């Protein structure tokens, strides 16, 4: 039913502040790109090297996306529908590449096979890093899809493999599409893998133009083109996600415990083992072997780097959760005029690659927040903008999952709207809020380009240390940082994938 309540000011005001604050740096990005006039901007966009750049980025995106759609779907089927043992454990392991930053696995691959440098290396690394974006939604949808349809197909004389392609894949195709578009968004935004592989795509070229320093207009202009591509992907993703296949007919939902034939399970298991071996095995084994080969390790430096990473991560997590709460509550519970704007703004921010946000914050800092430029507050601010949409999504989903009847009851018992939010809405959403916070901490610890650009001089996090030593191929030094980062990132990932696992496979 339409809930026409308008939000109390005490909620709407902070939500608006959050949205506006996260959009302000964009204004400075646009301003910088227009510094030399509109004609200059148009010329810059239509020079031939921009076209080459677009083609190269597009080629990488298409190949990785298709590969992830295939790999993610097979792995999803394997963990939900195959007859393999220990499927929850498989799902948890298969989600683990999310914990490994792309620059780390890229560096592991080129130290193992140096000739992979370039397009193929970047494609392999990005595929292995981002197939979980397809696997998780497809697994969730497979779980909800009616397994009896496959039984019916087979009883009508269709082979097991054909019944999967003719029935099952049709059922989950919205999830495959939505996941694939997320992968595409991830690929165009990725900085670490392409930078390590020295592949000139958007993000790497933008970073180069920024570091060269003579021409801020070019970096800003290319950022605008990248925003355009990313926005397109986000719009497509939203349109696709709306289409879900409903189970026809009522009756109790029967959950799939099917004996899939070995002729299907075994090949799928081979795919899963390959994904794990290359996706987790290569970076983990490399990191361990680097650690062993390192002669002298400056442990004091390692520990202070871990502390810095965690400190910045915790600050970002806290700031992002505080900012995301009013936005999430507003979007989930108060359908008013402000919502369209808020939702749109959140989605725009969601599409912005880290490097673009970092550059916007730089221009913003130089123009009006000079005292904070290259200081912790501005670094946390930049990372907060990156992770705000993620945390808003997590908060919003968990609030939408609890029934509005709880709030209605509280109101009828004499509790005001704001008090109801603190006494009912927020306590019920605690798991989602905590998960969102964990996502932000994990992201901040892994985040490379924003940290590189916005950190105070002399501050090293795990991400920047790995970057620093990998660019001079100092394997010995990189080891402890790589192991520490993976251990640190594995923790929230394990928690998050356990939550997903519990939701997907019970």
């Amino acid at each position, binding site marked *: *039913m339409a809930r026409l309540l308008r939000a109390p000011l005490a909620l709407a005001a902070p939500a608006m502040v959050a949205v506006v604050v996260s959009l302000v740096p964009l204004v400075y990005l646009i301003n910088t790109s227009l510094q030399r006039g509109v004609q200059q901007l148009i010329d810059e966009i239509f020079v031939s090297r921009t076209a080459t750049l677009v083609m190269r980025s597009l080629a990488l995106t298409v190949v990785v996306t298709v590969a992830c759609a295939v790999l993610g779907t097979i792995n999803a089927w394997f963990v939900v529908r195959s007859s393999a043992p220990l499927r929850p454990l498989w799902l948890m392991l298969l989600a683990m590449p999310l914990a490994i930053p792309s620059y780390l696995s890229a560096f592991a691959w080129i130290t193992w096979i140096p000739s992979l440098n370039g397009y193929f290396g970047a494609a392999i690394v990005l595929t292995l890093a981002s197939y979980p974006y397809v696997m998780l939604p497809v697994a969730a949808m497979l779980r909800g899809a009616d397994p009896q349809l496959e039984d019916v197909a087979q009883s009508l004389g269709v082979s097991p493999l054909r019944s999967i392609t003719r029935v099952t894949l049709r059922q989950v195709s919205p999830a495959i599409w939505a996941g694939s578009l997320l992968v595409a968004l991830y690929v165009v935004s990725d900085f670490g893998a392409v930078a390590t592989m020295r592949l000139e795509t958007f993000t790497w070229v933008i970073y180069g133009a920024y570091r060269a320093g003579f021409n801020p207009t070019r970096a800003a202009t290319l950022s605008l083109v990248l925003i355009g591509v990313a926005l397109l992907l986000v719009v497509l993703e939203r349109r696709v996600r709306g289409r879900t296949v409903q189970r026809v007919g009522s009756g109790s939902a029967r959950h799939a415990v099917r004996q899939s034939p070995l002729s299907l399970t075994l090949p799928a298991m081979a795919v899963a083992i390959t994904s794990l071996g290359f996706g987790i095995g290569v970076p983990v084994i490399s990191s361990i072997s680097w650690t062993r080969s390192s002669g002298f390790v400056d442990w004091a430096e390692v520990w202070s780097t871990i502390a810095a990473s965690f400190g910045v991560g915790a600050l970002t997590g806290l700031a992002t959760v505080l900012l995301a709460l009013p936005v999430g509550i507003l979007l989930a519970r108060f359908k008013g005029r402000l919502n369209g704007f808020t939702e749109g703004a959140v989605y725009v921010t969601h599409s912005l690659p880290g490097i673009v946000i970092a550059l916007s914050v730089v221009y913003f800092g130089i123009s009006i927040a000079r005292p904070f430029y290259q200081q912790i507050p501005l670094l946390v601010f930049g990372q907060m903008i990156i992770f705000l949409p993620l945390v808003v999504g997590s908060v919003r989903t968990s609030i939408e999952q609890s029934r509005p009847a709880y709030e209605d009851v509280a*109101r*009828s018992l004499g509790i005001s709207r704001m008090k109801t939010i603190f006494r009912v809405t927020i306590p*019920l959403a*605690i798991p989602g809020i905590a998960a969102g916070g964990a996502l932000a901490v994990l992201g901040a610890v892994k985040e490379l380009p924003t940290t590189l650009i916005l950190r105070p001089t002399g501050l090293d996090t795990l991400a920047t240390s790995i970057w620093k030593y990998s660019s001079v191929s100092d394997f010995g030094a990189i080891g402890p940082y790589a192991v520490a980062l993976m251990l640190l990132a594995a923790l929230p990932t394990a928690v998050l994938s356990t939550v997903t696992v519990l939701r997907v496979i019970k």
Partner: protein
Amino acid sequence: MTTALELTGVTHAFDNAVVLDDVNLFVTEGKITALLGPSGVGKTTLLRIICGFETPQQGTVNICGRVVAHDGTSIVTPEHRGVGLVPQEGALFPHLTVAENVAFGLKRRRSSQARSRVQELLHLVDLESCADRHPAELSGGMQQRVALARALAPNPAIVLLDEPFASLDAALRVVVRTEIVEVIHRSKATALWVTHDQQEALSCADDVAVLLGHQVAQHGTPVDLYRSPNSRAVAEFVGEAVRVKGVARGLDATSVLGDISLVTAQHGNVTLIVRPEQIELEDQPNQTTPRGEVIASRFYGHDGEIDVRLPTGDVVVARLHARLLPAVGSVVALRVNGQALAFA
């Protein structure tokens, strides 16, 4: 007798689809009034209007002599209306214990008065031993009792129950609703009970308002509604109805079921309505006794029903004691016991 709640001319539409059209309703203090209607007739909207979550576009809502909403303006916010809500499935706060749930709407809920009020209510619903449990550890029926205790705790002017037993299975439902009715009576509370289950409405409420076609079609005691419905729609909605054509002359009518006396006088062609339990087997038939063939028989245990096809093609349903059920295919003679309703 004072009126705890009064709605006058309440009209409400969503996107031009009329949900409530000039609804007039009152609830007498100390009574349980059922709001009975099929799904989609606007019962839940009416409830939300009383609570204050929707504002009626026209009409007045009056709680205990205080106008709380009038013609598109909400005058009193939900938290100040003194209306206790028991939603579907109870909606107990899952993050709070049973005692904390009951204390939720009390002022200074850690004070000793609040604590003794919680004790009193848990005693009332017979759940004192569950005070420290969480809602997830309770059965569906227990959850409903806690939800009622929580709604009663701040002494509301009226308690609203929104299809409170829809989620319980049939066997449990009867037990739980008997308990709930008892608790409401014992606490001398006023209640408006929304339901689509006519058996529930007839057996639990002191008064029943039938909501049909977005309006209150009739308001009366359960016995009145069943015995003398004021329209064919109410007659067919409240209780099962057997319909046959007939010709009325005052308080008598002739029909395929023979001569029948009527509750109210009518003339000309009418539709006669009788209840299945009024149709009985005639053990001393004569030549004019209506006869028909049994085409279906349903055995329920304590009683049963047969479908009888009359020579005219009309099919009527009769409810009989289980041991009287004739075999399918046999020909039976029928008589109508008591008076029929007639509608033009």
